[in-house]
């Protein structure tokens, strides 16, 4: 992806490997894509649930299972719950991370300590906090609530650093000029920092969406009320009730996976930048 001044020479040197590279990469792609194909095919035909040997090509595809999902489970309810929790998480991340990152671009006593603290917190996976996190959420009275589901993901360390890198890249002269023009601190953020950090905002939106959309363990722990369940919980419940007896399970899977896949395909660069800048889930 980086500009390579010696591209022609290197390309020539590599060309003789092209053929074998393609064979290798096609094989890898094949193995990576098989599960996608398999779930899509079954969601459209349902044919290899009962019959052996399975047919490799879809025979007479139909959308009935997709319709079935709406009748078998409260899909709309799950979808709405997931959407609300994700919206909360995204909003909080975009705002709170930007605020924290902006503060960290400034110099103040204790800044180094805060940065060290954040970096150490990154080493604490959420899963190692579940027991006290459950007790704390209970004490806050947030069990079985949207806020309770979203709160632990309200700010993500990785995303703070994504913002910070972007803010640090804004020329100081630009900010000083704005100050001289009489812009307040808040106006500097809203009119200069954020507009110049569009891709950092996008990274925040995408990462917080994917993480909260896919989040399973935390809602599983704090949600008992069926009306508050999100899509992953619904999916797991569906599995428990119906096992593999209907293609609707796989139609459900496809419907749940689609938003993430589409978003990822649309904003791959922002997504990957976020992951490579800080690595693990904050």
């Amino acid at each position, binding site marked *: 992806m980086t500009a390579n001044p010696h591209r022609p020479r290197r390309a020539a040197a590599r060309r003789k490997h092209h053929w074998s590279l393609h064979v290798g*990469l096609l094989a890898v792609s094949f193995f990576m894509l098989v599960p996608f194909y398999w779930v899509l095919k079954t969601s459209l035909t349902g044919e290899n649930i009962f019959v052996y040997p399975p047919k490799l090509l879809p025979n007479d595809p139909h959308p009935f299972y997709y319709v079935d999902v709406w009748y078998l489970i409260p899909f709309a309810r799950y979808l709405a719950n997931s959407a609300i929790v994700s919206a909360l998480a995204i909003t909080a991340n975009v705002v709170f991370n930007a605020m924290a990152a902006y503060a960290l*671009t400034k110099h103040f006593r204790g800044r180094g300590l805060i940065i060290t603290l954040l970096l150490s*917190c990154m080493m604490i*996976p959420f899963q190692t*906090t579940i*027991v006290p996190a459950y007790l704390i959420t209970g004490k806050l009275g947030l069990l079985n609530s949207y806020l309770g589901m979203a*709160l632990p993901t309200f700010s993500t360390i990785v995303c703070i650093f994504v913002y910070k890198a972007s803010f640090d890249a804004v020329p100081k002269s630009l900010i000083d000029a704005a100050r001289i023009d009489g812009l307040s601190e808040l106006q500097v953020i809203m009119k200069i920092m954020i507009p110049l950090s569009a891709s950092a905002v996008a990274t925040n939106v995408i990462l917080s969406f994917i993480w909260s959309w896919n989040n399973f363990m935390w809602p599983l722990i704090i949600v008992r009320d069926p009306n508050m369940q999100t899509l992953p919980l619904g999916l797991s419940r569906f599995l428990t009730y119906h096992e593999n007896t209907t293609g609707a399970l*796989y139609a459900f899977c496809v419907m749940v996976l689609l938003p993430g896949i589409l978003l990822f395909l649309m904003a791959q660069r922002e997504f990957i930048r976020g992951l490579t800048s800080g690595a693990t889930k904050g």
Partner: protein
Amino acid sequence: MQNAPAAAMPAVAGLAHATARPRHGGGLKRRRELILIWVFLLPSLVVFFLYRILPLLWNVMLSFQDFSLFGKTGWIGIQHYRDMLEDEVFWTSLWNTLLYIASAPVGIVLALAIALMVNAEVRGRNVYRTIVFLSYPLMTVAVGIIWRWMYDEKVGLFNYVLRTLGIIDTPLPFLQSFEWALPSILLANVWQILGFYMIILLAGLQNIPQNLYEAASIDGASATQQLFRITLPLLRPSIFLAFVIGVMTSFTSFDLVYVMTQGGPAHSSELLVTYIYKNAFELSKVDYAAALTVVQFLLLVALTWAGNRISGGEAGAVKTE
């Protein structure tokens, strides 16, 4: 305006250097700025305090307590840790977690091969990258359901392929068998995380200066020599990062196990994380779960530290861009 010289200094990411800036006060303006800074930091710090730092400390406390959600709470010393030594399921889940970690290098080597391939000037490499990475952002619960069914004993894809190729005669009940349950989950996990490893290694590869390879070529170094003398040594921080992620995953892979086997049959695919969940939320042994978590966390720290030592102490040296 007194702040201007300090603000113009290049921002150094790292430890305390705040003392280096001039002390003479900016008066009211500076004070207002400081208030703003801490107000801006507050929401994030509250979240991290409530859901990272406090739980970490509380876990340690709980692990020495006899805790019940409704009754009285008292101190019982190291009783939970002593129980753990006697607890066979704990040892099984610890062993399984270590196996999970051991699968990380396998995935990383695979991902390295793929990263080297898609880093070459090959047509359509962005498409290949997308395909390999596509499984990573998926909802793990759905991934578990898809794989669970590919592993199905009667009509699963794996059994079909293996039987057609004549490798096995009778279908294998992958997820219901003691030997195969964990390896089956590991394979699904590698499938999902492979793209993530690849992206990290790819970012590392792109940070290696190209002129090193040119100089090596002029000196007559073969492609293999270049791989072992230039690429791999310079890629060490990225490999370490991928390893840390692999270790973390082994401690956090709850969703896959929960959906695919529930830790069964008879705890043969139990991980520490699933065992902690079961203790806390199915058996109401919150205090014991906390003790297990402490052990798990110490293991995580130890492994990361060891990995860091091996990689040459360059943790987190991966560039931001």
